[in-house]
């Protein structure tokens, strides 16, 4: 159940807008999974269902020209940063008009126009890349910041140490966000993680770190706002650790059946959209408003899917584009043509 917030103080417009965004993400994910079931999408899709408050609460506090590095579970971050859901859906279906022209798919989705520098198929690899993007900002001397998301499983890979050390040594403006959804694919992360967790590890590296309930949109929003304000001012990295739960399977291929039903069921009670709805209702928003937001989000994503299905496949030639400027092979030299 939602924790009590001082609802008389609630910025209803702000959280209505974030509520809408969370619903859009959820609807996108559910639609994407439907597309997986229909074999419209063949690759892996890792839904962020249950983690929407983190995506929205953090990204809503970023500027459009701030930068974002994401993970295999990146749809929510990407949408919250402002990418077009329609273009993302086309990407998932591998069609013309996809964010990456159909060449990347779910795990490599990117939209540089909104500062989204890419999801990543390699766990934790985005951490040092994020530090480097911030390094460029520092060299250029502008005031942007970088947000870098990763999962609880990622903190056991070398880049967590090397990347956080890097960001702190050079004084780089990065908000690292750990989405602790308790699982690394089918494995309970806690069993494979020593010590007191991500925040303690970050502190040992000299970073300020905060731990919050990641299913509480207000907490996430407030913490992100404060931390981003500090980072923009003092150019020092920080870590935000958000506890949450992966409500569905690891990917569209996984039903998550290694988790007891009771555990999963209990978590549905705490999921962020329901909790945000409760807050908004307590603040006087009518049920009908909330329901229509949900309906609109679903309708938008179903339309995006229909539109994507109708979109043409990419032309074969583009398979050979954007490999490299020097020494690129040409399609004329493709083996089956020679």
């Amino acid at each position: 159940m939602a924790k009590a917030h001082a609802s008389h103080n609630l910025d209803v417009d702000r959280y209505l807008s974030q509520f809408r965004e969370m619903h859009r993400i959820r609807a996108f994910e559910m639609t994407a999974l439907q597309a997986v079931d229909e074999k419209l999408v063949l690759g892996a899709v890792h839904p962020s269902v249950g983690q929407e408050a983190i995506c929205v609460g953090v990204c809503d506090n970023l500027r459009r020209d701030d930068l974002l590095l994401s993970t295999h579970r990146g749809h929510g971050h990407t949408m919250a940063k402002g990418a077009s859901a329609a273009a993302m859906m086309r990407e998932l279906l591998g069609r013309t008009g996809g964010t990456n022209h159909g060449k990347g798919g779910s795990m490599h989705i990117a939209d540089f126009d909104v500062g989204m520098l890419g999801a990543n198929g390699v766990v934790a690899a985005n951490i040092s890349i994020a530090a480097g993007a911030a390094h460029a900002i520092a060299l250029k001397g502008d005031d942007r910041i970088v947000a870098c998301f990763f999962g609880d499983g990622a903190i056991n890979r070398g880049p967590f140490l090397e990347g956080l050390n890097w960001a702190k040594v050079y004084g780089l403006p990065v908000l690292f966000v750990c989405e602790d959804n308790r699982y690394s694919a089918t494995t309970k992360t806690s069993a494979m993680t020593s010590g007191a967790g991500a925040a303690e590890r970050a502190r040992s590296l000299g970073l300020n770190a905060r731990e919050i309930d990641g299913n509480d949109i207000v907490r996430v929003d407030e913490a992100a706002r404060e931390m981003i304000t500090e980072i923009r001012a003092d150019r020092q990295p920080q870590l935000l650790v958000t506890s949450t739960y992966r409500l569905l399977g690891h990917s569209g291929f996984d039903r998550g059946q290694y988790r007891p039903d009771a555990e999963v069921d209990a978590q549905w009670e705490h999921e962020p959209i329901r909790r945000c709805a409760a807050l908004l209702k307590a603040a006087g928003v009518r049920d009908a408003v909330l329901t229509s937001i949900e309906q609109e989000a679903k309708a938008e994503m179903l339309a995006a899917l229909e539109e994507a299905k109708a979109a043409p496949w990419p032309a074969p030639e583009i398979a050979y584009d954007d490999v490299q400027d020097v020494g690129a092979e040409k399609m004329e030299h493709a083996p089956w043509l020679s």
Partner: protein
Amino acid sequence: MAELSYLEASKQAIAEEMRRDPMVWALGEDLGRGGVSGQYKGLIDEFGPNRIADTPISEAAIMGAAIGAAMMGTRPVVEMRFSDFALCAIDELVNQAAKARYMFGGQARVPVVVREPVGMRGSAAAQHSQSLEAWYAHIPGLIVILPSTPADNKGLLKAAIRCDDPVVYMEHKGLWALEGEVPDDDDYLVPIGKARKVRQGNDLTIVTWSATVHTAAEAATQLSAQRDIEVDLIDLRTLWPWDVRAVLESVERTGRLLVIHEAVKTGGFGAEIIATIAERGPRLKAPLRRLGAPRVPIPYSPPLEKLMKITPRQIVETAKVQMQA
């Protein structure tokens, strides 16, 4: 003999070797729930969590720890999930595992088997589709195996586990479900370094390995049925050591060689085979030829991904050209 899938065959191999030798164990992410493709499903029930060990997401430490544990006399089967993630553990594999025995003057043995499934399958895209077997064949100290059938995936995996050298063992993601006859024998071993003759013919030698064996077999059937071209089809099975003798014998007979692999053609192991044969200077009826992927990362969209794959049609067309030369 039993009809088993490529996946089941590998699981049987591991189970048998674990029963046979208490020093054999497996480690990798998610193994307790069967591993990413179910290759370990149920093994934990028989062998327990110490021998079917879950690990953190720490490829470098998985490999590094396996090396230390191998030097101390255990025989780890290292699961890298996909060969792409083994790139997070290359120092450990190439600078440590491959060299430890040599640089310590023979004091160390590193009997690890590194399972690294390769290949394209269903929009896995640029970071989950690579076939980098040529890299490992270039590294002194390593053995490189790529099974193409259920039987081989039993016999070669067992041979790899019993081998005292570090072995890079690359299954193909697209073959897990492939069914075939697999000997029940507990001691069924396929010797490392021996090729398999898939089909006998006198017109054209085709050398390939891994999933492409099946593509080539299909092409060979078409060539025979439609053109009376009889392919001598060789499944190399191991890239290091590779069966030079078998390839040479065949090429001397057919006068024509086509090497095919799913990996990028440039710098792929096909180059080594062609170069080795060219250096021997056999009498040829047509220039040596290779087919491989273009030097392009693997794209996501199905029609683009398809462009990266060798098809029976391409093989047929190339074979026809070679027959006309």
